[in-house]
């Protein structure tokens, strides 16, 4: 990964309270795991940004090294890596994701 890509990812992560790196868009997710991650964020009702890695090969590869995580989607909250869709689901079901958003003072959607 080039320094420029690393910096671009760092800026995205730092510049958004909640950001999901995903395949496709919230309206048209291109993978079941990304679709599940979006459904969880929608249920939580938090404001979030999404990055479609299919539109950017450098970010698609770079985010895996950046997070030391081999798969997409990937969720960041307040600059911290939270996990992929399986961890999101476990945390959601345990109420931990809602708690994390509350603890971090994340804004609700609209």
């Amino acid at each position, binding site marked *: 990964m080039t320094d420029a890509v690393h910096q671009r990812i760092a800026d995205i992560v730092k510049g958004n309270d909640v950001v999901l790196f995903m395949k496709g868009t919230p309206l048209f997710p291109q993978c079941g795991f990304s679709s599940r991650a979006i459904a969880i964020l929608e249920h939580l009702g938090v404001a979030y940004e999404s990055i479609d890695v299919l539109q950017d090969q450098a970010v698609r590869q770079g985010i895996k090294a950046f997070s030391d995580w081999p798969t997409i989607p990937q969720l960041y909250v307040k600059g911290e890596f939270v996990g992929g869709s399986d961890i999101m689901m*476990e945390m959601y079901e345990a109420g931990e994701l809602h708690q994390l958003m509350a603890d971090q003072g994340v804004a609700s959607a609209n």
Partner: protein
Amino acid sequence: MAADDIADMIRAAIPDAQVEITDLAGDGDHYAARVVAESFRGMNRVAQQRAVYAALGGRMGGVLHALQLTTAVPN
């Protein structure tokens, strides 16, 4: 990738792991794995899953696209 191969790789790297693999679609391509290991104790979920991914030696996200993964410590 065969379910047994996935389980074998995880057990080879995490000897105390109990591994359950479910073939979700019956197509030998979409799996769910549940890995329970005492050695996960004290690790958060991200660290536990990283340990499993490391056991799979870079196949995750490659030949293993569709692996749902849950990890836990024994009760």
